């Protein structure tokens, strides 16, 4: 009984167990069970193949000068021409790449941990009702579209916005945040946190809901301080989820805030705001160059695969489950 409970708490601990037992089950003649599991996967797999992988075949237009009305069949083939936009060392592309990587880094460092911290803070609230209220409030911004959020920020922080009107009325000068290239990345980051940090706590709270209260009880009886409890009981429960999400985020390393940035782009100038996705949009889709957009999509996919598989490997080195284990 006690053993059961202890393994129940931190999900990470069992990954090793699963791996160890694997050959044992292979020996069993009961592959019928395995087949049963396969049938479970079939409906989802069918949807995935039908609506994802079949359309994905259409990405051959990456090698074409594709025109919608001519179709894939008759559009002229252009070899790797569409990939030039990635590989010809174009200054604008490199700038977009650099902005993208900077933003990804900033977001992994400053945005990614916020929901975790917030979830921990919420989790430690004594009053269940208060906790629910706070949660309910914090996740609201997730439902606003970027257009609305950009307008809200403009009105709160713009030169004639509420903050600056307040500062001016107290002779404190103005604080130029919106439309300022120097603060643009910080602004983007803050907007992302504002929109999604509360929402991001939901997964972590779900994970925390599985932590065995006996563990708290036990550690408290051992005289563990609050901080030690968090460190030894709460965080381990989140570890595998955090690592999983981090790996998946890396797969998306080359995509940052497309719509969010597109909306605010000309206000600060392309120099500091162009990212890969907007670059592809502006250089590909806007001019009807579907092939270019598809080509960049393929390159991004390949980079994503490398990052995800690499990160997964690293996770294994640390004895973590990661996204999957072969």
């Amino acid at each position, binding site marked *: 009984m006690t053993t059961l*409970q202890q*393994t*129940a708490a931190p*999900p990470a601990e*069992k990954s090793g167990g*699963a791996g160890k037992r694997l050959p044992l*089950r292979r020996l069993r003649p009961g592959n019928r*069970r*395995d*087949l*049963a*599991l396969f049938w*479970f*996967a079939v*409906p*989802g797999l069918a*949807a*995935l*193949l*039908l*609506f*994802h992988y079949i*359309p*994905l075949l259409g*990405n051959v237009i990456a090698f074409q000068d594709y025109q919608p009305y001519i179709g894939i069949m008759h559009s002229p083939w252009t070899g790797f021409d569409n990939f030039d936009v990635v590989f010809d060392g174009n200054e604008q592309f490199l700038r977009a790449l650099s902005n993208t990587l900077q933003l990804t880094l900033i977001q992994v460092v400053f945005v990614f941990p916020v929901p975790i911290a*917030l979830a921990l803070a919420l989790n430690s609230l*004594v009053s*269940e009702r208060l906790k629910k209220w*706070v949660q309910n*409030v914090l*996740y*609201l*911004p997730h*439902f*606003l579209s970027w*257009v*609305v959020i950009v*307008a809200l920020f403009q*009105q709160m922080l713009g030169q004639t916005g509420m903050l600056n009107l307040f500062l001016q009325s107290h002779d404190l000068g103005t604080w130029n945040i919106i439309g300022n290239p120097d603060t643009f990345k910080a602004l983007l980051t803050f907007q992302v946190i504002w929109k999604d940090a*509360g929402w991001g706590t*939901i997964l972590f709270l779900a994970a*925390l*809901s*599985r*932590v065995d209260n*006996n563990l708290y*009880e036990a550690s408290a*009886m051992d005289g563990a301080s609050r901080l030690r*409890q968090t460190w030894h009981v709460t965080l381990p429960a989140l570890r*595998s989820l955090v690592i999983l999400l981090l790996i998946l985020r890396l*797969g*998306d390393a080359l995509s940052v805030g497309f719509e969010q940035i597109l909306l605010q782009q000309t206000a600060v100038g392309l120099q500091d705001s162009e990212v890969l996705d907007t670059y592809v949009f502006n250089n590909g889709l*806007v001019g009807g160059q*579907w092939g270019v957009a*598809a080509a960049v*999509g*393929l390159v991004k*996919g390949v980079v994503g*695969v490398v990052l995800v598989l690499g990160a997964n490997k690293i996770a294994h080195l640390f004895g973590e489950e990661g996204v*999957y284990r072969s």
Partner: protein
Amino acid sequence: MTTLSPTRPRRSGGRTHRAYSAIPGESPGSPPWRALKSLLLLVCVLLVVVPFVAIVSTSVAGSAQVTEAGGFVLWPDHPTLDSYTALLSGGLVSRAMMVSVGITVVGTALSLVSSIMLAYGLSRPGSFGHKPILMLLLMSMLFVPGVIPTYLTVKQLGMINSYWSLILPTMINAFNVIVLRSFFMSIPKELLDAARIDGASEWSILSRVVLPLSKASVGVIGLFYAVTYWNAFFNALLFMNDAAKWPMQLVLRTYVVNNASLSGGQIDAAAGAPVPPAQSLQAAILVLSIVPIVLVYPFVQRHMNKGVMIGAVKG
């Protein structure tokens, strides 16, 4: 959808928690730490509440005050529901709301069933097809099909102008499945093995052991799906030619985004675009588009209390 395990004791999580919160381990820590934490949370809450109060206030403020403010107002001088009556009188908005609710309910149900099955099907490494399917799932997050091929596929399936086009193409979300799978895999193997030794079928293991232990995670993934369905407009834009069948978010778009003339930035509308709908109208439709989905969360939250797992194991 799935029945809960009858063996699970009907001990409400809330009660369990309250019992535990009295123990020392749940105490909120030293006073300064506690004050700091409360302050931080308060700031967070204010940062969110103020803009939302502004949105709601704007939706009930008269147009004079809104025009004067040049945008959102913090508090309405003369509250009026004019914007809401104007929106709901045409019949379009209320119909769109029904469409969105329908899509969200049906879509979430289908997504949850297929995702739970897929996640469970992938939860035991080494089973038949495990690795290739998992890879397909993972790769689908990294390689995204273009808009045009997706449209062609949906069209080939005869789903243009059909509500199915808003559900089936987005039924499986790889991220959700992978997260759900990791939750499933964290269930103690001993529990599952015990059930297997008892001769339980995979169906009954899923429905009687796994799901009751995963209420929080299934609830969260269900919420993720529901919100995705609720917020989606792009597929409707492509697949629904008849505006009478539009979901709420696409109707909302013609109120809020259109005149921003930068939803794609492709059309010169700097001069010659009509005056945008009054800000109070925009705010009102925003409120209408948020309220229904916000009401869903508390139902999920109910399952996020602590002590669920232990209760089941003991049972």
